């Protein structure tokens, strides 16, 4: 019997993870052995998928040099999630929520969302707020950064601190960087009366090498340890007609190694190839390959086209169905075997005094990106019985350097 579930079941955006992603990109900026340019960047992003989840998330990021060797970055983001299938008690999947218990759950969700200001009739089922502050300091030929991010929503809170160091050698032909990220998350599902912790620590390293005037290469590695509550409390595992909470190990060690190569094809175009191998102690492994092509359409317009393919193996304790309760049980399809493909399109337009978009001069830049994503899991998703997810991601950004 299908029970109405919370938005997060579809697992599109889980909160602490976004903070992690942003932290990494900040560290990456740092590793360019130069202070980031003074700029303000506003992004308006949208996500829609075939599981009826829609997310709108505007964000603003401001970067400013405080001295010739110090820069500060501040960021604010809001995630607004809407899940029509959840609201309709899973009408897109197997069965329908029809019991009084499900109606009570739905009401409780509404009550919670009402309490947070998003009640019945509201466009959004869940809202997450995130704020971050970071500092970048030049030290000789090296760079050091420290960043802090705090994220909060009704049922999840995350605090993250990240630091990184990079050092250049051989006239900046070689750069070695190391990073450290630590997150303290608190999980407090609305359908439960408990609160659990989740801690994540990541060590990373990368080496970038200029191979010629036309080729740059990079190798990267990461080592992550997770501990605490590592399951999703909104998911349920049905065993012999009984719905049970998933049971995951309390610890996980995750490793990844990747390489990227970027080379100029012609004066106006470039190509980037990348590969990543991932493995962990839950026996999940994956291979990721990507190609990205960029080309100038004119002196002010750059178009990009990318493809990405991903192949994942199954976690050791994942089963399409369980005959009995075992040490570990799960329905999380992210632990299942499967594959995905993605097609990305990017358009960047630099403002120019000769066009209407350059009313702020040549310091303004407009970015548009669209991606089409398809994921296949070998086991049907428990919520709607579908093995395939289709999604589209759209972002419009304005970047002004001052």
């Amino acid at each position, binding site marked *: 019997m299908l029970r109405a579930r919370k938005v997060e079941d579809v697992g599109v955006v889980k909160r602490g993870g976004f903070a992690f992603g942003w932290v990494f990109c900040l560290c990456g900026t740092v590793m360019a052995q*130069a*202070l980031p*340019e003074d700029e303000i960047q506003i992004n308006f992003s949208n996500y829609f998928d075939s599981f009826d989840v829609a997310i709108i998330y505007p964000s603003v990021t401001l970067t400013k*040099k405080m*001295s*010739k060797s110090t820069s500060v970055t501040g960021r604010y983001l809001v995630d607004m999630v809407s899940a029509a299938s959840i609201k309709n008690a899973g009408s897109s999947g197997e069965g329908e929520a029809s019991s009084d218990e499900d109606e009570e759950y739905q009401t409780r969700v509404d009550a919670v969302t009402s309490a947070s200001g998003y009640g019945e009739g509201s466009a959004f089922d869940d809202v997450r707020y995130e704020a971050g502050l970071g500092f970048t300091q030049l030290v000789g030929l090296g760079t050091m950064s420290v960043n802090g991010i705090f994220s909060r929503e009704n049922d999840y809170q995350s605090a993250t601190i990240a630091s990184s160091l990079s050092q*250049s*050698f*051989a*006239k*900046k032909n*070689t750069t070695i960087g190391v990073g450290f990220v630590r997150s303290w998350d608190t999980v407090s599902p609305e359908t439960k009366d408990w609160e659990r912790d989740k801690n994540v620590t990541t060590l990373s390293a990368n080496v970038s090498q200029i191979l010629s005037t036309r080729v740059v290469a990079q190798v990267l590695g990461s080592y992550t340890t997770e501990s605490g509550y590592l399951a999703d409390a909104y998911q349920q595992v049905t065993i012999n007609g009984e719905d049970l909470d998933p049971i995951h190990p309390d610890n996980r060690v995750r490793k990844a190694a990747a390489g990227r190569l970027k080379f100029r094809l012609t004066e106006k175009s470039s190509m980037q190839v990348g590969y990543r191998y991932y493995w962990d102690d839950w026996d999940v492994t994956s291979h990721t390959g990507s190609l990205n092509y960029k080309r100038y359409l004119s002196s002010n317009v750059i178009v990009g086209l990318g493809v990405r393919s991903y192949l994942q193996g199954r976690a050791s304790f994942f089963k399409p169905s369980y005959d009995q309760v075992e040490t570990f049980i799960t329905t999380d399809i992210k632990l299942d075997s499967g594959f995905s493909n993605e097609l990305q399109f990017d358009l960047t337009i630099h403002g120019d*005094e000769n066009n209407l978009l350059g009313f702020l001069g*040549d310091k303004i830049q407009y970015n548009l990106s669209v991606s089409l994503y398809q994921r296949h899991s070998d086991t049907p998703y428990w919520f709607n019985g579908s093995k395939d997810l289709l999604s589209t991601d759209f972002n419009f950004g304005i970047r002004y350097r001052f």
Partner: protein
Amino acid sequence: MKIIVGLLILVTVFGVRVDAAPQIGQVAPDFECVTADGQTVRLSDYRGKVVVLDFWASWCGPCREEMPFLVDLYRENREKGFEVLGINIDNKKKNMEKFLTKLEDRPAFSILLDNEKKVAALYEIETMPTTIFIDPQGIIRYWHHGFTKSHKKEYREELHLLLNPDKRRVAK
């Protein structure tokens, strides 16, 4: 572990700059270069003046930030025996011209074309931009790597010292 440590040392050694580049306190190496106007000039032609060598390129963000400041600095001090030589290393002259055209005030000082990077190699430039202050006797007095807004005050102070020798103190 020994191999790793040894290789790290190797990397560090390779990364250490061998100081064959001109140093502060030494005579600035002379060179000949063609200007954007088609004239041929030598650094020694400017002996007796305070000279700033500015190695720059249109593709370099800090260089683009520095150029308007140098334009103003030159305009304010050219009558006092001050000269700026903007040594451009763009592969293509048209890219340099496109950038200069967008400036509010086009530089009144000479722009030298070094698209073969010979002068940049002579001075073993390690950062873009590199700004070198040379006194009237042809001695390198100040050497700046990169440019941010905070450099403006330093440049003004150093220029003032060079233009007023009685107040000059030993360069750092």
